């Protein structure tokens, strides 16, 4: 799956916890320097935010009309 913001997308909207967290961590490991990935979820993943901050990743969050949170994470 690709998205206008980045080709690296984890669509976790129909995954059960902790799969979204695991899939995001796996994809982050495959990104090269300067690349970004997009996580799609129907909620804000605050525990993930904490791990991202601890590991020095920047992220931006936008909620779109259907309720999806688009979380754009920098490598």
């Amino acid at each position, binding site marked *: 799956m690709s998205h206008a913001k980045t080709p690296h997308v984890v669509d976790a*909207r*129909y995954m*059960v*916890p*902790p799969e979204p*967290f695991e899939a995001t*961590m796996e994809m*982050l*490991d495959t990104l090269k320097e300067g690349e970004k990935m997009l996580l799609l979820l*129907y*909620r*804000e993943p*605050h*525990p*993930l*935010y*904490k*791990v991202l901050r*601890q*590991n020095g990743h920047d992220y931006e*969050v936008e*909620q*779109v*009309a*259907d*309720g*999806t*949170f688009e979380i754009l994470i920098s490598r």
Partner: protein
Amino acid sequence: MQAGMAFENAPPFIAPLRFFLTAPLFAALAGLLIAVDGGDLFASRWTPGALAATHLITVGFMLQTMLGALIQILPVLAGVDLVNPLRLAQVVHLGLSAGALLLVAGFLFGQPVLLGLAALVLCLSVVSFLAVVMRAMAGVPSTSPTIRGIKIALFGLAGVVGLGAALALALANGWAWPLPALADLHAGWGLGGWAGVLLAAMAYVVVPMFQLTPGYPVRPSWWFPVVMLAMLLAWSLAVLADWAWLVRLSQLVAAMAGIGFAGLTLRLQSKRRRARSDATYRFWQLGLGSTIFALFLLLTAALWPAAGDIEGWAPAIGVLLLAGGFLPFIAGMLYKILPFMAWLHLQNCGMARVAAPAMNKLLSEADSERQMRAYFLAFAVLLAAVIFPDWLARPAGLLFALANGWLYWNLFGAFRRYRLAEADIVQKLASK
């Protein structure tokens, strides 16, 4: 890179568990009270038995589970870390349990001193909770409808408890206040502004997460808590100014907002990707259907006040909203949240070296479904008891007590298996 989930700051599992394992006992007590009191309890909303049974459910069951769940889940829902959550849980749990018992005893025995003490203990418990949680949430921006909803619900909690304490003192001291209008407003703040808004804020997260439905659309989910708050403020103003038309108008809009939320949730559930209908799904279906029915009765009475005087109308709204709505919503969530939190704690305990047992080993779906069927039967008989109180009140009370006792047994069983699994993991780690 850190591979584990960031739950190192999550409160110990026992913090919410003490609430979850006490709450069903209060609901069972409500059932026993109905069984003892019989049909008299349904004669009016104002009988001591009806007031006591209502508060066993609202304070003993609902407030316990809601505050316990918030202490556990605020780090996950809002990224908020509470200061000393275990101590907070101990204080609030003790205060709510003692306060609920004092309040119920005050109603049943008509003792002013017990009502005054209950007001004091419940106020102190809730103020302690609000002080810690509001301080933690003060700097948190409302980046999601869930966070906004929780903030508004906390305001609603202050409203319902403040009004409740004032009513208890007015009853105890025989003050000449317009008690029926204030009691309606107290119920509105409790069931709409606090419980209803909090339920919606939680639903935005847990319904898509556990039932694999689409998400709640942005616009209604941001607006629902605000509309409820605005209507309760308007209702409060109307009571102060003695404007009956504004009381009815605000009830009407609040009921329509509630029906809108419940209808939207039903629509999302119809698009879910989980094929099996588990106990949580069925409990929520009952809760949503029953809430819609109750709110239509409320809406009808707002448009045509004479309907509210029909015998059984107000007790039917109470049974539909509490036994048919909030209790099933909460039981359904407990069946997901409790094994999930237990599993998370076991996973952390195993430190990626020893695997935690699967969630359905901690609480089997078959056990949850059997209890759910018993609860559905109890609710059906309780609702019928509103129409035939002399025949059905006692069996309905017994069935309700049994179904809630069974809920306790299932939750306690999950806790017991959690403790066994924890000991097993510690032993395996030591021998590695």
